[in-house]
């Protein structure tokens, strides 16, 4: 059974204070790892897909990395508008496109 654990549960940063969010996973035959952002009252919004260890993706102040056991979402010089819940999900081979999600990390960035 696929398992995804995200840490910490909540993170409070000062504007400009860089940090990383962790996603640890256990899956038999990883086909892809996904990061989503979710704002209050909204559905998750897709950010990145990572397929293999060593892969990195960047978008503005966000950079996602992947190893064989975990993924990090690095946030460089965050702004208050980066405040949201960040979700990690995995899909394994043969899963018929079914995702397994972690519980999410709530990020608050203070001005």
């Amino acid at each position, binding site marked *: 059974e696929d398992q995804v654990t995200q840490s910490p549960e909540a993170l409070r940063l000062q504007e400009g204070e860089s940090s990383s969010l962790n996603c640890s996973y256990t899956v038999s035959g990883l086909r892809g790892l*996904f990061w989503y952002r979710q704002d209050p009252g909204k559905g*998750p919004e*897709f950010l990145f897909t990572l397929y293999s260890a060593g892969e990195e993706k960047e978008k503005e102040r966000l950079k996602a990395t992947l190893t064989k056991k975990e993924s990090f979402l690095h946030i460089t010089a965050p702004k208050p508008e980066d405040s949201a819940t960040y979700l990690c999900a995995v899909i394994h081979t043969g899963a018929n496109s*079914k995702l397994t999600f972690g519980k999410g990390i709530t990020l608050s960035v203070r001005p």
Partner: protein
Amino acid sequence: DAGITQSPRHKVTETGTPVTLRCHQTENHRYMYWYRQDPGHGLRLIHYSYGVKDTDKGEVSDGYSVSRSKTEDFLLTLESATSSQTSVYFCATGTDNQPQHFGDGTRLSIL
């Protein structure tokens, strides 16, 4: 914008009544999913569909049924609602090798 519309957006009903939630997509995606999101649990898959009239159970399917008679519509039915089914329900769509995209959710309260 993946063109996903969920209806209703909010609903309050009583225990024991039937409830149907609708998900409509305009992207002609093959896969459609229903999730529920609860504090402390994250997103959990209820049912999914991999084609018209082709559906399968997710990890929390008890008490729910689904139907997909057209590519664009995926219905989630609670035959006899219980208070434990109070939640926020999200629909998502996807294709092979592409990330899932989500609607903005239906907030369902069962009194």
